[in-house]
Every structure is written in structure tokens, then in C-alpha cells.
């Protein structure tokens, strides 16, 4: 493997960060936020700490964990679980992206046009390889940060300190929010799989990733509440509402600009998860089938997307969280066992 086939830890950080952060922004199936920032922010901190605890067992074993797991039958079963989780997440993301497009767009693009268009893009990007995707992620990362910066700056005039709700006893609500809000993004599984493509097989620094996610969540939640106050409770997508409110100078509305960047990040998430599935399939499929890995990834993602289009499972995030946590713990177990054996 030449250096041209490797990606840097920073590039992988951009891929995983964007894939995870876009889930916070685009939430067409989630309930409106009905808790104040005072509760949501500490709850997010606890949830990220829990996530860190879940990923800790994998810690030292992470380097080469997927490769080691591919060598044994139980390990291969774990890889199947990871691939299935990523595929189902891809199906959900396809529907979320289409839902977001319908919610924000002036005209409605049929899912049956949207699906082949996006799948063709995913197929092409996965075929190019994760290296190309990783390089593009840097550009999308910068665009995304600019977008968030513009959302904040364009809403500065609208912020009101009194919109911040104060709860004298926030502990019960925080505990409830921790229970309801914990989720394990399958993008983390993609990060684990794709870390094989980095030098020395090390993925992005977990502490940095979680800190960046927390900082982003903090900004979203605070700005939403400072601007929208009680109005936020009626909003399905508060951050998008902020994008619709904020204007700069003569540009009274900038939401189309933001939504195109967010949609890019959403498609990037699909590609990152697709690239991870393709790598997993390489370990799972017999050698003569491996050349169909990319087509199989796109086909299965499309099938999941189509299935969810007709019947979207309301508890998908919970199922993906359970499957993701289980996969990480099993991978850590199998990998450690294999490491000891060797």
C-alpha cells in the first residue's frame, strides 16, 4: 500500500465529525426540543462521556481491530453486525436527506428521483475510494464551519438573554434527557473501520472528536434558545429556523445557502458509511466476489432506503444505538482475544 492510499487522522476526523454533527442539524423525525439549554447541555456532556466509556474498551485494541476480527468466525459475525448497522443507518440517512430537502425546498423532488441520483453519487465516491472522500471532507468541513459562523453572526441582533430558561431543580429533567438523548452514531463505526486506512491504523483522537461535537452542540443549543426562546419548542428543526431568520446586510434570507452545505455534509455521511461498508465487505466476501463490493454497498443502501421510505421505523435511532454499542463491545472483546492468542 503506497502513501497515496492512506488518509490522515485529521481527514478522518473531518469525515466522522461531519457525519455526526449533521445528525444534530437535520432531525426531521425527531420531536421538537421541549427542554431548555440548561438541561440539554449538561445532558449532552454526560451522553458524550458515556460514549467515551463505551469506546474505551476498544481503545488500545483499536489499531488493527477490524483486521484481526476478520480472521475468526465470531469476529466476522461482528463485522456483519457492523456492516448491517451502517447499511441501515445509510437507509435512514437517505430518507432524512430527502425529508430535509422536501422540508426546505420550494419544490418537491420525488424520492424515486432522489434515490438513484444520490446512490449514483455514493457509488461513484465509494468507487473512487476513501482517499478522495477524505480530501473533499476538508473542503466541506470549512464550508460547514463557515455556515455555522454565518448562522450565529446573522442572528446576533435577535438574541435575548431573557430567552434562556432557568430551572431551579434541573437534575430530574437532566437525568431524563440523558436517558432519552443517548445515541451512538453509526458514523463512529465507520470511523473505526476507516481508521485502517490511516498511517499506523489509528483513527481520530476520540477526546478531540467528542470535544468538537460538544462545542458544536453547545453553540446550536445556546443560539437556538437565545433567539427563539419559547418558540423553539414548536420547531422541528430549530437550527434551520435560525437559518431562515438570520440575514446579513441586504441578504435577508440565507437558508438556501445553508441547506445546500448541510445537504453536502449529509451526502458525505452517506459516502463515509458506504466506504466503511465496502471495506467490511472486502473482509467478508470471498475474493472473487470482492469486485462487486461497491455495487453491493450502493444496492443494499438503496434497498434499506427504499424499505424505510415505505415504512420508517420510529425507533430506528434506538436500534442503531443498541446495535452500534453491541458491535463496539464485541469488536473489543474479539480483538483482544485474538491479540492475546497471537
Amino acid at each position: 500500500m503506497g502513501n497515496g492510499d492512506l488518509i490522515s487522522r485529521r481527514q478522518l476526523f473531518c469525515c466522522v465529525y461531519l457525519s455526526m454533527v449533521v445528525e444534530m442539524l437535520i432531525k426531521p423525525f425527531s420531536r421538537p426540543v421541549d427542554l431548555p439549554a440548561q438541561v440539554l447541555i449538561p445532558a449532552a456532556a454526560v451522553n458524550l462521556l458515556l460514549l467515551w466509556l463505551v469506546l474505551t474498551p476498544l481503545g488500545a485494541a483499536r489499531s488493527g481491530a477490524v483486521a484481526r476480527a476478520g480472521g475468526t468466525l465470531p469476529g466476522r459475525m461482528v463485522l456483519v453486525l457492523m456492516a448491517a448497522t451502517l447499511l441501515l443507518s445509510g437507509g435512514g440517512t437517505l430518507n432524512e436527506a430527502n425529508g430535509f430537502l422536501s422540508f426546505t425546498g420550494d419544490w418537491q423532488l420525488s424520492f424515486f428521483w432522489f434515490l438513484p441520483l444520490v446512490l449514483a453519487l455514493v457509488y461513484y465516491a465509494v468507487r473512487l475510494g476513501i482517499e478522495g472522500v477524505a480530501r473533499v471532507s476538508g473542503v466541506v468541513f470549512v464550508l460547514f464551519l463557515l455556515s455555522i459562523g454565518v448562522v450565529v453572526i446573522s442572528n446576533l441582533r435577535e438574541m435575548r438573554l431573557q430567552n434562556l430558561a432557568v430551572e431551579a431543580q434541573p437534575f430530574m429533567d437532566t437525568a431524563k434527557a440523558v436517558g432519552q438523548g443517548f445515541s451512538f452514531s453509526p458514523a463512529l463505526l465507520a470511523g473505526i473501520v476507516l481508521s485502517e486506512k490511516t498511517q499506523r491504523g489509528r483513527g481520530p483522537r476520540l477526546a478531540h472528536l467528542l470535544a468538537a461535537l460538544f462545542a458544536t452542540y453547545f453553540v446550536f443549543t445556546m443560539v437556538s434558545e437565545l433567539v427563539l426562546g419559547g418558540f423553539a419548542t414548536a420547531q422541528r428543526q430549530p437550527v434551520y429556523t435560525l437559518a431562515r431568520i438570520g440575514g446579513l446586510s441586504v441578504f435577508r434570507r440565507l437558508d438556501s445557502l445553508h441547506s445546500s452545505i448541510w445537504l453536502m455534509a449529509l451526502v458525505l455521511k452517506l459516502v463515509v458509511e458506504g466506504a466503511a461498508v465496502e471495506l467490511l465487505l472486502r473482509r467478508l466476501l470471498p475474493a472473487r466476489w470482492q469486485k462487486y463490493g461497491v455495487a453491493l454497498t450502493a444496492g443494499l443502501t438503496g434497498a434499506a432506503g427504499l424499505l424505510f421510505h415505505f415504512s420508517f421505523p420510529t425507533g430506528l435511532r434506538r436500534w442503531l444505538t443498541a446495535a452500534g454499542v453491541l458491535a463496539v463491545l464485541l469488536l473489543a472483546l474479539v480483538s483482544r482475544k485474538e491479540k492475546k492468542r497471537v
Partner: protein
Amino acid sequence: MRRHAALLAALSLCLALTGCWQPVSLAERAVVKMICVSLHGEQYEVKLAAYVAADGDAESQGESKTVFAEGRGDAVRTALLDAQEGIQQQAFYAQNELLLVEEQAARSRLQEILTYFSEERSSRPNMAVFAYRAEEEEQLLDKENIEKTVENLEKMKNGDSVRGGLTQMIYRFDLKGERQDFFLLPRLQAGEEGAVETDRLLFLRGGREVLSLKGEEKTLAELLLGGAESYQYQNGEDSCTVSDLRTAFSVSAQGTPQLSVRLSGEVRDAPAGCAPEALESSVERRLEETFSSLYQKCYLEQELDPFQFGWWFETRDARRYGALLREKKLFGEDTLSFDAVITVDP
């Protein structure tokens, strides 16, 4: 590098997915600039004022004319669709910043109307909402002055108007009533040749108007709500402007818990020959008397907290605030004090 560029180009497809498909030229659009909503019996009545290209084609060189349309329906949406039938062009709502609700409709259906517009994708959540009296509708939608009226209302919304006062945007309303159980709505008064100003602040709760502020009380309320930055003092022939107005809050450390509100400001255009001390005390007295009557009406009679004094109280002393709240003594005669400190710059 080529891969990189190709993938970036492919991702840019997302730009095409966000609305650049099937473009509608400006000449084919009717740019809605003002929506008036009223009730006709049990039905909603909607009136639209929209700008269209003057001669209806792309050669209009940027000139526009105003078209009007009206429609009725059982819901705001159906009334709007009915109104759209009266316009040849495609109605475009994304530029509209003004929503005017007739007083009676506002009293009984404001929540329903605002909920519709807050959920409607094609409209803006930062539309300014005003109430108006039915008898003023004709003047507000007067063909001769509509462009001036819209311009003045937009100036008022954006804080560019001298007589601005408070404007309420849709996203300032707590539609689910989780933090505030009332709506506060400024009422418009139309003047000659498109002039507009707000003459009242209406407080609506439970489908009825519980309080209406005007004159000095309205002005002070707007100051406390952040809708104005200066105060015009008038006493007979003498007048001056109090500017640099600031509000400070504190809670007494001992004894009966009390929130102290202090309004400070400066007069820079004192009338010639006027003693600064006399002017200071006269402005202060006026503000304190007005506040006293405002507090009586809002807090003691109606138990409304439009100025969020409760929030300031809680953030400064949560424990004593909680105790007062439990005992239902939060806003009484002695739990709040107000004083004005005005300095005159000679």
C-alpha cells in the same frame, strides 16, 4: 487531484437539489409584501398586496406595480389559496415581512394564525405581526399609498423608523404557552399618505384582550421591552429627549425579598433656561408614576409578566424567588421597586 475535483463537482449536485431546478422568473412572480388576515363570520378572510413586474414581462426594467387579491376559507391556508386565484402570477411569500391581523381576529384566533405561518415553509418566521382596526383596513390597503405604507412598516420592523416602537416577529411568540400564557401585540394606526405608527399594545390571553396600553404607559412598556431606546418627555411647552436608557436589576440582600428596577438615562437637549435639577426630578417623577400605573395594570390586576421581572428575580436570587412563587406572593405591592435616575447634561 482529478479525483478530488470530480468528487467535489459531484457533491456540488447538492446545490442543484436546493431549488435551482424549474426556475420561475421574477416577471412570473407576484412578490407578496403584506398579508392582512381578518374574520368574516366564522371564515378567514385574507387580503394580499403583492408587487408584480409593471408590464407583466421580463422587459419591465425593474419597475413594478401593486396588485391586490382577497380570498376566504375555513382555514388561513384555504383563504390564502383562494386569494392566490386572483393573481395571474405565482405568489411568492419569501420576501414578505408583514402580517397584519384584524383586532377581532387577533383576539380570538391569533394562536391559530401564527401557528399556521410559523409552520408554513414558504413564509418567513421573522415576519412582523401587527393588529389593526377593521375600519383602518381600507386606508392601510389604499392603492395610492400602499407602497409607502409597506415601506414605512418595513422600516418600523427593521428599527429604521423614528416612531418605531415595539415590533413583534412571529418567532417572538411562545405559541405553546410554555413560558408565557399571553400574547403581546402592537396595534397599528394609519395616517395620511402611508404614514403608520403603533398606538396601542394589546395583551391577549385565552381568546380575549385582557389589557391595552396606550400613551405614556405604552412608551414605557416599549422601553422596558427593548423596543425603544429613547424617551420623549413633554410637559406643557417644555420637551426633551432622554437617551442612553439602561435598565439595571438587583435583589435586596436582606429583609423582604424585593426586586429593584432602576432606569437610567441622560438628557442632552434640555430646554434653554431650564434648571437641570428641576428637569431631572420632573422626568424621574413622570417615569415613576407611569411605572406605578403600568405595574398595577400588568402585574397586580392581570398577573402578566411582560417585562420578565420574574426571570431577573430568579437569576439573581433563585432561592427567594422560589419561595415567593410557592407562596404566590411573587408580584405584590412590596416585592418590586422602581426608580428612575435621569441626569441632565447642561
